[in-house]
């Protein structure tokens, strides 16, 4: 079968857009909820903890070139446990997809399409993902190539437009509450880095897998910078209390801006950028999920799985969260951290253990 390849640049675009999409949606709210005006420090701190996740996930993917986590876990653990363990990951992809589309749909429904049923919005988002994954990984990479400059431009725009109204004195006093709220605030951004588990499915298709780890680290570096900037800006424009309480602080910040007498509304810009980023995020998640499931089931093609998986994701997104508050509740450090850390680290510890035990020259034992 023809193996589709992407390059590390496209991997970087994928990961960066995944990260930044969540950031512009509502991440600052979560961090500033704890750390108030120091949210931006939390954002920067999250870089280090996320780097650990990237290393844990990415290093194994690099060690087994051309093999996805489904394949090398079977190689490491044997057929039955090796097939059970990646189920955690497949569930994670579904989870992230459902959460992402639900978030976007909530914002779109409240802000723009109050009379459209939420299923329709989520269905359309999933349909675009199905279409691109159906076309293949290579078109997906090229889509990222095309979308990235537009996305970046919109991000820069939404960073620059609020500047005249920013009051940076809101950021003072720095570290007012000491380090502990800042550290707790860094938990959620780290948890969001669960997105980087996509590397376990993507790196096998990258042309130079040795450099993929670098691409991922650059993406988290820039992603953390964007997060810190947005967090600082949201607090500066809205003030620490408002910035903490608002549901979607970046959205709210953009909404409060009047560029000129005539041009009052520029929030479609953010929504559009978000939509583009979400398109990439969803598609990558769907790709990883369907690809993983097809490998697990021993199917040659992942295409027949796409539509059912999209339907499941939409259904799950509706069933999982009753409303926006439940959605937000999930992202509180107390709830999300254990769940996600369990999903990421439990399989990874086992895999790493097996990998390290097997490594010293006893390859011919099998």
């Amino acid at each position, binding site marked *: 079968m023809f193996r589709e390849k992407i390059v590390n640049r*496209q991997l970087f675009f994928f990961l960066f857009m995944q990260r930044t999409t969540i950031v512009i949606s509502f991440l600052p709210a979560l961090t500033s909820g704890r750390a108030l005006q120091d949210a931006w420090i939390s954002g920067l701190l999250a870089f280090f903890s996320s780097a650990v996740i990237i290393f844990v996930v990415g290093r194994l993917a690099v060690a087994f070139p051309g093999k996805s986590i489904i394949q090398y876990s079977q190689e490491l653990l044997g057929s039955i446990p090796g097939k059970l363990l990646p189920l955690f990951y497949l569930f994670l992809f579904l989870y992230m997809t459902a959460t992402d589309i639900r978030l976007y749909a909530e914002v779109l429904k409240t802000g723009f*399409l109050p009379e459209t049923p939420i299923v329709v919005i989520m269905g359309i988002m999933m349909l*675009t993902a199905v*279409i691109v994954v159906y076309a293949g990984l290579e078109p997906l990479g090229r*889509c990222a190539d*095309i979308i990235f400059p537009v996305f970046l431009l919109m991000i820069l725009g939404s960073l620059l437009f609020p500047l005249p109204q920013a009051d940076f004195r809101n950021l003072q006093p720095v570290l007012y509450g000491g380090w502990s709220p800042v550290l707790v605030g860094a938990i959620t951004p780290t948890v969001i880095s669960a997105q980087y588990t996509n590397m376990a499915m993507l790196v096998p298709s990258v042309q130079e897998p040795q450099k993929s780890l670098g691409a991922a680290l650059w993406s988290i570096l820039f992603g953390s910078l964007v997060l810190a900037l947005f967090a600082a800006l949201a607090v500066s424009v809205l003030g620490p209390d408002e910035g903490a309480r608002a549901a979607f602080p970046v959205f709210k910040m953009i909404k409060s801006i009047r560029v000129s007498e005539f041009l009052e509304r520029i929030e479609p810009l953010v929504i559009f950028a978000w*939509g583009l980023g979400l398109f990439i995020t969803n598609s990558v998640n769907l790709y990883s999920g369907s690809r993983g499931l097809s490998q697990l089931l021993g199917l040659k093609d992942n295409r027949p799985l796409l539509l059912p998986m999209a339907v499941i994701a939409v259904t799950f997104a509706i069933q999982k969260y009753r409303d926006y508050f439940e959605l937000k509740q999930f992202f509180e450090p107390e709830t999300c951290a254990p769940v996600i850390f369990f999903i990421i680290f439990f399989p990874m510890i086992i895999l790493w253990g097996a990998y390290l035990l097997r490594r010293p020259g006893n390859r011919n034992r099998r």
Partner: protein
Amino acid sequence: MDYRDISQREEDFKKAPLVADLERNLRTIMEITGNSYDLSIKKCQIGPEKVPAAVIFIDGMIEKFAIENLLQALKLETFKTGIDGINKKEIFATLLNSLLTEISREADDIQTLYEGVSQGETALLFDGTAKAILCETRGWSLRTIVEPENESAIRAPREGFVESVRVNTSLIRRRIRSPNLWIENLYVGSLTRTEVAFAYIKGLAGEEFLEELRSRLKRIDIDGILESGVVEEFIRDAPFSLFPTVFRTERPDRVASAILEGRVAIFTNGTPFVLVVPADLLMMLQAPDDYFEIFPIGLFLRILRFISFLLSFFLPGIYVALLNFHPELVPITLLLRIQAAREGVPFPVVAEVLLMEATFEILREAGVRLPRAVGAAITIVGALILGDAAIRAGIVSPGVVIIVAFTAIASFTSPVFSLALTARLIRFGMIFLGALIGLLGIQFGLLVLIVHLVSMRSFGYPYMAPFGPLIWQDMKDAVIRGFWWKQTYRPRLLGFREPLRQRPGQMPRPPRKSNYSDKNGGKDE
């Protein structure tokens, strides 16, 4: 009554041999061509021994002078060499070598003979020889080389292709004089036998790609090719796509520049439209003027064209989406104006837009078909009466008319007409999406469009290059048109065999010491 059908007749024609007996040969030819009135068969006798011979040509495809010269030479040569009729076989060899006035070749069977004659050559048959001489006498009236009407440019060569392959390839040969411009040809169409030629630079165009093109062209099995559009549909990569994956143009300068990038031009006899493969979307947005005007103007024009290209796809859809779903996003004063103008319009916005779009499409189609003489009438009825009256009667609002008219004009900025046709169709889709779910629908349409475009290839070349895949090096000639002296490299995927196009660092600078000093009345000492 002859009961043989066309394929049987063609079969027989291909098998028919030339024999030594002149009368039998002529009878075979008469039987095959059915005594068609434009086929002239003149019998004559050559030389002192009066060897029976025949001259065959098609009236209207030959140069009168050429035939006269040929006959003159024929008489002269036979007398000069003093061939005696006893050795009939020698006539053929002597004449083949000595008829220097014309380019001549020999034909061994009826098929070669007839195919030569049908291209305007003149055949000579002699009694006693099972071969014929074909002399180059072609000459028929052609359209003169004029500026292509559908692809006008301000500053670019004024020549355009005509309907003859030979003239068209010569237009390219005149521009690229390197011997490495290779032109291959083949005949397509079982009945029309249309000459199809393709030109490329040997050593620059990828060999695998050329092989692919050859095989695709050879695969075509059809009775007739009347226009290059038929060839295009047979060799396309994405037969169902709305987007043209084969570039077509009437301009020799565009074809030459494409060949210089490593692409291949396909010429079809009987049409001025030359195909270029592999094609990408970008080249359909580039106009010749961009390259020949100075840099900033070229840059400005191109960006303008990109924006209007996007508008021609999305503007009516966005208008419908905004008014239907998101009126709060429209600046309040503007919204008030639009709503005031819409007062009393009986249709919803979608119906209004669709109505105007449909009207415009009909007008445009009528504009293409109508005889020149009634053109003015249609313009007045269509533009003035329909548009003005529709607004006054309150059937449509002025806003919609502005949007539709602007979109139409924007779509005409695309230098390739087929792309404007694509935009026409996709626009309707966007209107529906915008009417269904507002801006989310437009976003959906945009994303699907992007996915479709990036998954397309033209002969293996990605259709959206250099945007997807992103090729930084090629960005110098994408959205912006970089300086000529900065275009150091060929497009990376096309010119991969030899990337360097010109010597780097040729930025012009003024000389350090001026030749004209201000002192001494401008004279240097």
